[in-house]
């Protein structure tokens, strides 16, 4: 059931309707196009700041695109910090074994069984 690669299952035509319309996400060039769309959207939102009266509590909010830049910088910082943190905190998956759920294989036989809870 998991990881079966039978051609029948791989046949896009047999995917549900919604999935068929999302198959483009597997295509890198189309994804790239999406990225560019995102960049443009961001630029647009930054520019939008100049066209309305911003209701604010703090002065810094008046900086155009403040929210955007703050979000970008902080998120990048977050990821980089977390990456650093990983050096410090990462342990083997079975670090706490045997008293941990991670060390256990999920019972294959239980998958999808509707009468019993996995």
């Amino acid at each position, binding site marked *: 059931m998991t990881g079966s690669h039978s051609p029948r299952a791989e046949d896009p035509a047999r995917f*549900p309707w*919604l999935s068929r319309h999302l198959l483009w996400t597997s295509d890198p060039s189309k994804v790239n196009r999406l990225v560019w769309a995102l960049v443009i959207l961001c630029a647009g939102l930054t520019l939008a700041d100049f066209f309305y009266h911003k209701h604010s509590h703090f002065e810094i909010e008046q900086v155009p695109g403040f929210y955007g830049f703050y979000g970008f*910088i902080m998120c990048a910082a977050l990821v980089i910090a977390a990456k650093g943190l990983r050096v410090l905190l*990462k342990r083997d998956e079975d*670090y706490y074994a045997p008293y*941990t759920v*991670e060390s256990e294989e999920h019972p294959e036989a239980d998958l999808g069984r509707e009468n019993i809870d996995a």
Partner: protein
Amino acid sequence: MPELLTPATVYILAAILLPFVPKGIFRQLVPVLVPFAGVAVFWTLQSGTFSSFNLMGLHIGLMRIDDLSRIFGLIFSIAACLAAIYAWHVRDTIQQVAGLLYAGSAIGAVFAADLITLFVFWEGTAIASVFLIWARRTEGAYATGMRYLIVQIGSGVILMAGVVLLYRETGTVAFSQMELGSLATWMIFIAFGIKCAFPLLHNWLQDAYPAATVTGTVILSAFTTKLAVYALARGFPGTEILIYIGAVMTLFPIFYAVIENDLRRVLAYSLNNQLGFMVVGVGIGTPLALNGTAAHAFCHILYKALLFMSVGAVLFRTGTAKGSELGGLYKTMPWTMAFCVVGAASISAFPLFSGFISKSLILSASADEGHFIVWLILLFASAGVFHHSGIKIPYFAFFAHDSGKRPKEAPRHMLIAMGVTAALCIGIGVYPAPLYELLPYDVGYEPYTTSHVVTQLQLLFFSALAFTVLMKTRVYPPELRSTNLDSDWIYRRMLPAMVAGLRHVITGTWRFASRVTTTRVDRFIATIYRAHGPQGPLARTWPTGSMVLWMAVLLGMTLVLAYI
């Protein structure tokens, strides 16, 4: 006999009767229908305290209805109903009973007008919920459950001790606003804090939720922590320290969430982060902030349940919830994916989704009160939560690189549960007025202003941009099978090691001492035996002369006395 018909009694009665309902559709229907009955009990009542009586000089009030308890009661009931639908396939009586008891206790605690009742239901949630973890029936789940239970009951006993002290100080057990200051209130505060997963007291959450069963996690995510938020809102509104605690709570889990592999644990971290917002709201304590807390709790329960449901469905079908093992599932589980995205959008507070109309209340309140740093932190946390919950969860589960797994779509009842939840999320987001009506305070607030929408979109899209850039540049940390150390290390590694060391020392000493004592005692008995045993001098038959000698000795002794 006081009036005992409260929502909690309804649930508890149902739980008791459930095992006797014939198996099949009727039994499955019970957990779905009971919440309606529960709501019916309190919905029509005016504000006030009901079912109150005097027990041993303590004023007990089982059901206090006011705006704050009503909204929490309502959302708990909704969550119970949705979770029951989601768990339609579960035929495990223990889980069903535990689920009902758990929901009932949580609702009972919400309506508690006095601290005794609160304590009773507080412990009730602890006990009932552990079965949802244990029900997974693995060694690891058992151990996790035990840890969870001890922490939860620990919270309960601290609460009880606090209540005792408070009762002694003030002579009342009414559950009303308290001032931090005495030992009693601090204890109560910490008891609430444990359930609310305050920083360093939080780890039970990330430990337990991923260990529970698929359906169990959904139920768990709804009640315990929000009950704690409610209790804080009731007992400690406007307590300044809560603002900082809440700010820290919003902050640190996002770092963990980024590097965590198990998606259910990622959700647990983000749950912790969302709780932070509510705690900040309680800490600020203005009507707006408290409204924000209530609203956010309401929305949060829904979208967090939705997220847990969708990840649970994935787990249910694929047998894993680890980011490193998943990917490309949209191909066969599109509906699940869609609902997951709705949940993700809600938690990220996209406009038109529920998170947007509740989180902004808290942010505005913090800004209104001029807490600049806190406001910045909350903003950062908002971006962060989008980052790990809004993007990471759907992305790694359903897109990213194709894991090759082609599971079936989630079962129909799960889809229904997710669908209803998603509809509620969107509904609230689009049309927040009814929710605002329910909020405890009458404060006019308009979420959909241009600046609010634009700034929020800026924040979110730039965060998304950051994510994309980091992915493209491969800076983003890959999903790895790993365990990340958290504060649970203290009690899973450090304390056991210390205890083991201590035990070693004690058993060593004990063994040494007992060996020494045994030899001493043996030697002592041997000495006694030598003297008193059948052949010993004291038991032997002595010649007559020796007794005469003794007479002489005694005589001499006494005569000496006579001459002194």
